[in-house]
Every structure is written in structure tokens, then in C-alpha cells.
């Protein structure tokens, strides 16, 4: 059981801890600063916090004592001489790698970076940046395309999948040396019809994978939801109740048939349908869904961002945070929710730790 939750917000990092009585706020760090993402590395106990200071750029901090103290470490950066001379605007994904101290980070613009030394130094994964298709990637919600999902195969650490808004789903079987687009079955309705199936313009808002059945992948896309049972080789469309628009998706870590989504009205109306915040869950591989609202607010105009939903290792506890600063926990696999905080700053990301 994971007894901490990292809640990254517009005005700081909030750490919640679970005890006999439930969840409680244990600590708050980086008061006033936008914390866009955080990561706990279970192997060495480190906590990483990605900040986006706006004026002064993206920063990365690490704590080796559970958050008591923090040190600024190197943020991923594009080497001088990189094609198009990009500068990193935001760290948009952060994951642990297979080797001790190894980290993967995705950015806006859509650079993929790897560190082998706990964030002391970073290397750009150039073969992905240099793909000619990058010319067709574009920003969704930001000025530049970005990498929001980095998935390391749990049994084959050379096998890496990334999700790019807007730039599709890409896979490497050789730790980043070569890449292939993996969007067969996806479609895009926001480009001219002849480009509908172009892999490079797909907008997966978030890619999630079943940890124990890694060929099972789920995508909340800009215009729908997709499921793959063959490691992203093919995707099939899902037809959930309420809405198929949204940002967040969480995959059950053990059951490949179960996943959770948080529907929103539409691209044009980024709010809950009928002002009623709900969570959709499937337990049969996406054939059918249940919609849960117990403990969730109405009327409500909360949006849950792509990193705003997480499930624990057991697949029974979930945490969800919204743009209007609502934070909820579920102890029964999403069927009911307990409001933990109503007035946090806008929540960018939540993560069990």
C-alpha cells in the first residue's frame, strides 16, 4: 500500500499521507511556485519536483530526505546545436528508468531526455527529436508539442513508449535509437479529412498501461478513447457513457480489463457534462462502462488534467485533483470518493508515492 500522495499545483507541492484515520496534509513545499509534476523514486527514496517558474524557466529539484530539504538539480535541456534551437518550456513527464538513478523526462517542446545520475545531467534522445515527422507535430493547449507520457516496458527496459500532444504515440525497442509511430486505428477530426489517419497529428492526451499486462494500453485522445491489447500495434475505439472527451486515464496495475477515465463535455466546453463531475470505469476491456458520482460534486466545473488521476499499486485506491483545486481519494476502486480538499490551487498532477 502506498501511503503518500504527491499533489502538484499552481502554487506548490502538497504531500498527503495516509494513516489509520485516512489521508491528511503532511507537508507543503515551494509555496507560491508552479509545480507541474513530481515523482517519487522508490528505489532510493528521492522525491523530484518539476517547477515551471514562468519568467525564469523550468526547474527541477530533488529531495533525499522525504521533502525536508530540497536541492536544485539540472533541468533537462536541449544542447546547443540541436535542430531548431529549442529551449525547454516545461517538464511534462517524469519517470524512473531501469538502472539505479535513471530517469526519463518528456518536455514541451517535445524533447525526450534521459538521466543516468539522478538528474545531475541529462541527454536529449536525438533520434526522436530528429524524426522528420516532427515538422507536423503541433501544440495542443501550449504553443509547442510536448511529451506527456513516457512508459518504460516493465519487463523490457529497452522498450519505450511516448505520447505526444500533438504528435502521436511513438515506440522504441532499442532504448531510443530508433522509433516507430504507433497509432493504427486512431483518427483525428481536427485536421482536414485527408490527414485524419496521419500518425503525426494524433493527439493522445494521455497514455496509460497495465503494469502486469504491458500489452494493454489505454489512451484518452482529443477526439475519443482508444484501447490496445497488442502493445499499441492496433487501437480500437471505445464508446463510453457521458462523453468520450477528457484528459486523464488510469490503468489498473494488475487487471488488464480495468481502467478509469474522467469525462469532460467537449473540446469546446472543458467542464463536466451537466456540471456533474463523474468517473467512468470499465472492467471488461472497454466493452462497457460504469459511471460513478458518489462523493463527487455537482454543480461543478472542475476539469481533471491529464496527470490529475492516479491509481495505487493495488488497483483499489485512486486520487484525483482538479483545475479548481478539488482533491478526492477513493478506497473502493473509484466507486465512491472522499473529498479531501476543496480549495487547493489548480492541480496539475497527482501521484501515489
Amino acid at each position: 500500500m502506498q501511503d503518500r500522495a504527491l499533489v502538484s499545483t499552481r502554487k506548490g507541492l502538497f504531500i498527503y499521507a495516509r494513516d489509520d484515520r485516512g489521508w491528511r496534509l503532511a507537508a507543503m513545499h515551494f509555496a507560491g511556485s508552479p509545480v507541474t509534476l513530481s515523482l517519487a523514486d522508490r528505489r532510493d527514496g528521492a522525491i523530484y519536483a518539476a517547477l515551471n517558474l514562468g519568467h525564469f524557466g523550468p526547474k527541477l529539484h530533488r529531495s533525499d530526505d522525504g521533502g525536508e530539504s530540497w536541492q536544485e538539480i539540472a533541468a533537462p535541456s536541449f544542447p546547443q546545436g540541436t535542430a531548431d534551437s529549442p529551449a525547454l518550456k516545461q517538464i511534462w513527464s517524469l519517470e524512473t528508468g531501469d538502472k539505479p538513478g535513471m530517469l526519463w523526462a518528456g518536455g514541451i517542446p517535445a524533447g525526450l531526455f534521459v538521466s543516468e545520475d539522478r538528474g545531475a545531467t541529462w541527454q536529449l534522445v536525438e533520434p526522436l527529436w530528429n524524426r522528420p515527422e516532427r515538422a507536423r507535430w503541433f501544440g495542443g493547449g501550449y504553443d509547442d508539442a510536448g511529451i506527456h507520457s513516457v512508459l518504460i516496458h516493465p519487463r523490457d527496459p529497452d522498450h519505450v513508449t511516448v505520447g505526444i500532444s500533438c504528435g502521436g504515440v511513438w515506440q522504441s525497442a532499442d532504448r531510443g535509437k530508433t522509433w516507430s509511430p504507433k497509432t493504427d486505428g486512431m483518427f483525428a477530426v481536427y485536421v482536414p479529412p485527408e490527414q485524419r489517419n496521419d500518425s503525426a497529428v494524433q493527439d493522445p492526451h494521455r497514455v496509460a498501461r497495465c503494469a502486469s499486462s504491458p500489452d494493454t494500453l489505454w489512451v484518452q485522445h482529443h477526439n475519443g478513447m482508444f484501447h490496445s491489447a497488442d502493445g499499441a500495434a492496433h487501437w480500437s475505439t471505445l464508446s463510453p457513457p457521458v462523453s468520450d472527451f477528457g484528459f486523464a486515464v488510469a490503468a489498473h496495475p494488475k487487471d488488464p480489463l480495468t481502467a478509469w477515465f474522467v469525462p469532460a463535455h467537449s473540446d469546446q466546453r472543458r467542464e463536466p457534462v451537466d456540471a456533474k463531475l463523474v468517473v467512468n470505469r470499465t472492467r471488461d476491456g472497454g466493452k462497457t462502462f460504469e459511471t460513478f458520482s458518489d462523493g463527487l460534486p455537482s454543480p461543478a466545473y472542475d476539469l481533471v488534467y491529464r496527470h490529475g488521476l492516479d491509481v495505487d499499486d493495488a488497483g483499489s485506491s485512486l486520487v484525483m485533483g482538479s483545475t479548481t483545486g478539488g482533491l478526492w481519494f477513493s478506497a473502493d476502486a473509484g466507486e465512491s470518493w472522499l473529498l479531501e480538499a476543496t480549495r487547493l490551487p489548480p492541480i496539475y498532477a497527482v501521484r501515489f508515492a
Partner: protein
Amino acid sequence: MATVHFTRWLAGVAPGEAVEIEGQTVGAVLEHLFAENATARNYVLDEQGQLRKHVCIFLDGERLAHGAALAAPLRPQSEIYVMQALSGG
């Protein structure tokens, strides 16, 4: 030679007090400072060496055009303020 002041936003990263630094241009002065304070560099410049979009520099009372700020020549006793632009961020 220039006297350089940093916005209070950068307290803890850049010098908290005004510092006197040699250099013929704004960029040269900052480079001298960054040589001894690598962290501050990443707050003022991006990794391509460009002034961050929402950082602005005043030289002797004049707000410098963003693209020309680093190349701006100094007088014998110039005063530089490194501030956050009141845009974006």
C-alpha cells in the same frame, strides 16, 4: 564596468545586493557573473543562450528591446537591472 541589480524574484539564486562587474556589453557582464554562478544563468538565459522571453533588462534607466539586450554596449559606469517582465509567466 557595470553595477548589476537583480529582481528580488531571484533572491537565493542571484546576488541579493548590487554587484560591480567588468564587461563591454550587457551580455559580457552577465557572462562574467554566470561564470561564478552557473545556477543564475539558467534563470536569466535559456539553454540556447537567449534571454528568457519574460526577463527584461534595464540599462541606465532604459528598458532594452528584448532581442538586442545582451549586445547593448555599456558606458564606463553603467547600471543594469535584471527584472521580470510584467507579461506571461
